[in-house]
């Protein structure tokens, strides 16, 4: 892999009227390669993160009607996640997502791999949460795992509120 290739940027949008988060991100890969990176448990565990955490796949059947379960672990701390694969197609994955710490919450995730040609693909990821509060918890959960130097300023700002 090249030392520092040009990074494709994630664009993100939190819908103000629906509890939805939408993301798009381009990849130098074919839809088939992206699908494989999302459905092969060994490959998936290598990138899903978050940063600095090890992903352990406990259950994995990436087929329509299948299910998945994994934990992200660091220093004895474990965060579990599980869900079902509602549909696994050639260019589309529809699945549910639940954080074990919020067992009543469930998000419906739709991933779509748009073929841009020339070995490039645009990933569209949409997460529909069951309430605005649910989306809030969802976004806020990232804060707990992402306390890095760059975020210290935001932490201070929030603490003032």
């Amino acid at each position, binding site marked *: 892999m090249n030392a520092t290739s040009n990074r494709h940027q994630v664009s993100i949008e939190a819908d103000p009227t629906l509890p939805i988060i939408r993301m798009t991100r381009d990849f130098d890969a074919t839809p088939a390669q992206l699908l494989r990176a999302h459905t092969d448990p060994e490959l998936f565990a290598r990138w899903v993160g978050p940063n600095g955490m090890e992903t352990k796949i406990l259950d994995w059947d990436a087929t329509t009607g299948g299910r998945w379960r994994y934990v992200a672990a660091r220093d004895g701390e474990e965060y579990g996640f599980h869900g079902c694969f509602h549909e696994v197609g050639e260019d589309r994955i529809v699945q549910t997502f639940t954080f074990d710490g919020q067992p009543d919450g469930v998000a419906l995730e739709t991933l779509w791999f748009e073929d841009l040609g020339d070995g490039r693909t645009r990933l569209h990821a949409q997460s529909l949460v069951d309430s605005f*509060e649910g989306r809030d918890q969802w976004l806020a959960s990232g804060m707990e795992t992402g306390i890095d130097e760059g975020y210290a300023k935001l932490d201070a700002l929030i603490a003032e509120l």
Partner: protein
Amino acid sequence: MAVDRLSRVFAALADPTRRDMVARLAVGDATVGELADPYDVSVQAVSKHIKVLTDAGLVSQSKDAQRRPCHLEAEVFDLMTKWIERYRQQAQQRYDRLDAVLAEMRGDEQSTKHPNLEQGAAS
């Protein structure tokens, strides 16, 4: 806690009437009576909505002035933007890792030339 505070912001904005009120206040300060005008609801009902928005820190009401106009606290939205940016950066890190995995997959494919790599690894 900060997260509770942010929960209140989102809960406050989950109601369509309150979102309308926020949109109205983005144009300029308004009294409770002025805010009640377009709706078929009592001033008391509007006051309740304003209280939710005030508790969430989205709206303030000046104590001294007789009209007590409601004022939108725009910096709360600024905070939400930063909050979303933080989420975006985590997604960015995740997909940068995916780039590395994909780059390795391309290398593997060139060296072994598997005819069918679509589905997950056997096991």
